[in-house]
């Protein structure tokens, strides 16, 4: 019998970075101002793909779901193996009172998003996911049990995070509701974060932020399946 085809990045990436989004991280931005926006998806300094977001008062869309992995590294299509998204696939629409969700559905990730007005006279950056502020959100999902260090790299804020071990097999485990953390100039609130595995963690950034979560020590447990140690 064949084995499951599981994206290796799902379990290989222990840490998260709001400025380099991976499969377990996402950023939420509220566009606010109507207009045509041009977005760039970057991995490091390289632009991987350009997309357009129309912030339109007539748009019925409350939440534009923008999958960075699908745009930057789309699956092969047809016999020609063409990988490029169509024009329609690179255009998004959202109501000014709605939200844009930037997430990564698979692959290695490491993306950041830069969003600015498409009008050439108005080229001031309006959103950069490497610098969250004004209530923008970074959400994370941490699967591996252990102890983590959380930091806002635009300041000195630090927090301690632990992820518990999952219960027994076939127990029908469902993670609790996500935990919300506020990031302010003064630091993280709360500063001690206790999570269950796969439980959502939502950072609301009220100060310039780039949230980085790093594994300090993995919890292998007494009867684990031989998980990897932290690096």
């Amino acid at each position, binding site marked *: 019998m064949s084995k499951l085809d599981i994206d290796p990045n799902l379990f290989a990436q222990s840490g998260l970075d709001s400025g380099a989004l991976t499969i377990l991280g996402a950023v939420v931005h509220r566009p606010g101002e109507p207009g045509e926006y041009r977005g760039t998806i970057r991995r490091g300094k390289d632009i991987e793909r350009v997309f357009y977001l129309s912030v339109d008062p007539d748009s019925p869309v409350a939440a534009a779901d923008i999958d960075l992995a699908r745009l930057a590294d789309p699956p092969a299509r047809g016999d020609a193996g063409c990988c490029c998204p169509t024009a329609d696939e690179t255009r998004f629409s959202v109501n000014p009172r709605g939200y844009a969700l930037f997430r990564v559905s698979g692959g290695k990730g490491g993306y950041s998003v830069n969003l600015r007005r498409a009008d050439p006279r108005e080229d001031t950056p309006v959103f950069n996911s490497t610098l969250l502020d004004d209530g923008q959100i970074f959400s994370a999902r941490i699967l591996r049990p252990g102890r983590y260090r959380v930091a806002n790299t635009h300041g000195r804020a630090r927090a301690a995070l632990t992820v518990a071990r999952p219960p027994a097999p076939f127990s*029908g485990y469902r993670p609790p509701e996500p935990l919300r953390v506020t990031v302010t100039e003064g630091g993280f609130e709360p500063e001690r974060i206790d999570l269950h595995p796969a439980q959502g963690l939502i950072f609301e950034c009220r100060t310039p932020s780039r949230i980085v979560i790093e594994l300090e020590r993995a919890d292998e447990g007494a009867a*684990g399946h031989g998980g990897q140690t932290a690096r």
Partner: protein
Amino acid sequence: MSHLTIAASENAFRQIFTLVRNGFTFAKSDSATFGPFSASYSLALHLEKGTVQLNNDGTVEIKALDVVWDTLLLKVCFDFPGFTIPGFCIIPDPWNGCLVGIPDIHIGGPICIPLNLSGLVSEISEVRARLKARYVVDPGRLPTWTDLEAEFAGKPNMWKIFIDPEFVSVDPIDIPATVGNLFETLVEQAIEDLLPGSLPGFAKDLLMALLTPVVEIVKGVLDVFDSVEDFIQDLLGDKLDLLGIIQTAVADHFASKVPIYEFEDPYPILTDGPLIPVKIPLRNLKADVTSQEMIVTGDIG
């Protein structure tokens, strides 16, 4: 009055029935898809036991005939809906659920559960039949041949008397509860086997923890309302129609494949020596039963 009468007591008839019953073997393989799952099987079976009663209304009643499944290999395959790492809501919608949320991550794949049910015994509760005499002309016989030439060519005409079932009642295949338990264990094993060996231990632990008890998985995927053994019983008997297949095979066997009595026509009575055999044509063959015996009558043509 008939020229020829041959009678066999009920006891003798039972012996002939034993011969015919023992001649029954059946094997088949097939597969089918039923919406969320597919199943394939390979079977071989024979018949044992059975009581025979002759009735004055001309019927033969066979009861409690055992179906012995020498081979019954069943494989159930389904798309395991899998491991779901649940998403969560980031920005709730005050009016309707969630405005912005992280979607679930689904990991699934096909799994197959091989189940060896060989050795099971089920029952044909009743066969009600009448005797039927049939005249069979060998299809390979040339029209110009005399009876003697047909005999020498190995293609003589035959009289055959069959137990011709009017109905065959096959009981459901009773699946013991242990098979249900075994099935669940095999599903557990198959799910574990689905996970790649390279997966870290914590990932396996998490994924397995996310699963509901296997019986619920099975019930959900396979649309099982009762016990797993009831599901297997229904799958074999109804969905894969093994009961119907047995019914047809047994009816065919008795009605047209293995006669209880057969002989050449014309029938050779003097065969010794260098001369051609003396063959006697038999006509108007009839077979019937009373509560005491089987009676075959015929005329000399």
